[in-house]
């Protein structure tokens, strides 16, 4: 097929296809993607299929070891660990992705506004980001969760609201450098409307960076949620995130180590996969990184 005859939209699709092909050559990222897909699938399906639920105690089956009727054993209240871990994965993934979306949204808007506006507005907005950078956020989020109760919604809004700073900086830098690029000037000279220019030229160029950083924000957020849950500031019992399960497991590890290791393995798997996927996406989407 001759690329030169194709209409313009296909050219943009081609750019994404190239990125996809680059991603496919990055083997660790592909393995990570497959593992993540598997975990998501299991997390969605297992609680639906399993005869056990995450909340009901079963006093006849306390501390069943892995294998047998319960594939991953049961906890101190006789609840099926597999179902509980899968619920934990659901919560961790949901918190991670939702909070990352919040932070990406704020970050892109803030950064792009600063970058477009330039001048005093820009320096004022970036000054605020600088100040927020030196605010100790871990203590602040702990205080927030203590103050407003352990609300599930609050945990991820709080995390999302404080993790947008990096993205804002990066998006601003990108917007600044894009604004003065030749192809933007050419587009402007051709008389494209602002909307077309943003949709056709600015957004595709920002999107790569945003996707990379969104992917890298997810594991940080998941770890942070797990950290809060470990301290007992996360979701309410009987619901459990991976952090809560690890915290429970750590209390019983002397007699029943699998209660600690199994949720820990799933947490590590998710976080590690997201980081490798982020690395792969960086190679695939960053146009300067072409090898």
């Amino acid at each position: 097929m001759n690329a030169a005859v194709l209409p313009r939209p296909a050219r943009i699709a081609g750019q994404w296809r190239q990125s996809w092909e680059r991603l496919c050559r990055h083997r660790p990222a592909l393995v990570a993607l497959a593992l993540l897909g598997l975990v998501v699938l299991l997390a969605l399906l297992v609680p639906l299929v399993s005869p056990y639920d995450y909340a009901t105690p079963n006093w006849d089956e306390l501390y069943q070891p892995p294998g047998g009727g319960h594939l991953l054993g049961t906890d101190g209240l006789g609840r099926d660990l597999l179902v509980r871990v899968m619920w934990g994965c659901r919560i961790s993934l949901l918190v991670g992705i939702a909070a990352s979306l919040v932070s990406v949204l704020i970050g892109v808007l803030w950064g792009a506004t600063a970058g477009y506006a330039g001048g005093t507005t820009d320096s004022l907005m970036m000054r605020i980001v600088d100040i927020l950078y030196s605010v100790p956020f871990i203590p602040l989020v702990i205080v927030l969760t203590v103050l407003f109760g352990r609300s599930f919604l609050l945990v991820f809004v709080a995390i999302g609201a404080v993790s947008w700073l990096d993205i804002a900086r990066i998006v601003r830098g990108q917007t600044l450098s894009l604004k003065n690029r030749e192809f933007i000037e050419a587009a402007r000279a051709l008389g494209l409307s602002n909307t077309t220019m943003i949709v056709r030229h600015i957004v595709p160029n920002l999107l790569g960076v945003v996707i990379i950083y969104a992917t890298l924000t997810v594991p940080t957020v998941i770890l942070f949620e797990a950290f809060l849950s470990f301290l007992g500031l996360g979701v309410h019992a009987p619901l459990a995130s991976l952090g809560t399960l690890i915290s429970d497991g750590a209390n019983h590890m002397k007699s029943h180590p699998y209660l600690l290791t199994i949720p820990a393995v799933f947490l590590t798997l998710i976080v590690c996969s997201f980081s490798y996927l982020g690395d792969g996406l960086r190679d695939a989407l960053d146009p300067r990184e072409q090898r």
Partner: protein
Amino acid sequence: MLKFLGRRLVVAIPTMLVIATLAFGLLHATPGGPFDTAKRMPPEIQRSIEAKYHLDEPLWRQYLRYLNDLAHGDLGPSFQYRNTSVNELIRAGLPVDAVVGSLALLTAMLVGGLTGIVAALRRNGFWDHVPMFFAALGISIPVFVTGPLLILVFAVQLHWLPSGDWRGGEVRYLLLPVIALALPYTAYIARMVRGAAIEVFTSPFIRTARAKGLPTRTVVLRHALRPVLMPLVSFLGPAFASVLTGSIIIESVFGLPGIGRYFLTGAINRDYTLVVGITVLYGALIIAFNLLADLCYAWLDPRVRLQS
């Protein structure tokens, strides 16, 4: 130089103000004061306690009083630990965190730095892929997993080391917390140093050094080491500030009496002054260590001029 310091301090003051105001405002925005216990106190005792801590004054007076004390380096009395000031609590906890934190960062720098440089020298070889895989793991496995696992293996099963407690910083009691705290920093430093080293090793001045026939060891130690370690400096600033104010997880897993534990119990018990005090201390340390890192940076790299 002096001008640079001055300008940085001018920015630091509003930043501190923002931190103090945020922390103060958040804590006072909550329902429930520090003396709301399940058992009801007689109203006159309640009133006299509130008067003692100035809780009966309007909020803006409390805020101004707090800022004034802060300017004099006084973080106020703790609400929870009667007759103890926040300064005293911090003074009690800080040495624990300083010992554990600096040992952990030192270990991380040595092990991580060495691993990173070796990985860069053996790029895409066995000694690159395997350590970097473990580095990726080290970043992904949180301390609250590695801490209990270390206890499980070395204390519960092998009985080599105690599982926790402080005992005035005896070496046997230090080992596990230091290792647990060092692991993520080691992994991070290894990745960072590897990246920096690859960039330096491919730059022209290293090619020149090699071209004139210097052995690899001399090239690395004499020429490459300094630029490779540069990014570490700006990383270590905030890292040091954060280990000094205590790793909450490390302290609760290993039962260490550091600042992080005071912070957590303070936040749960609404010990206003304690929580605000530690938050402000953390902010101040971050600002101070960032400044220190910038100065070190300029000292190490003569091309950097201290501006903006």
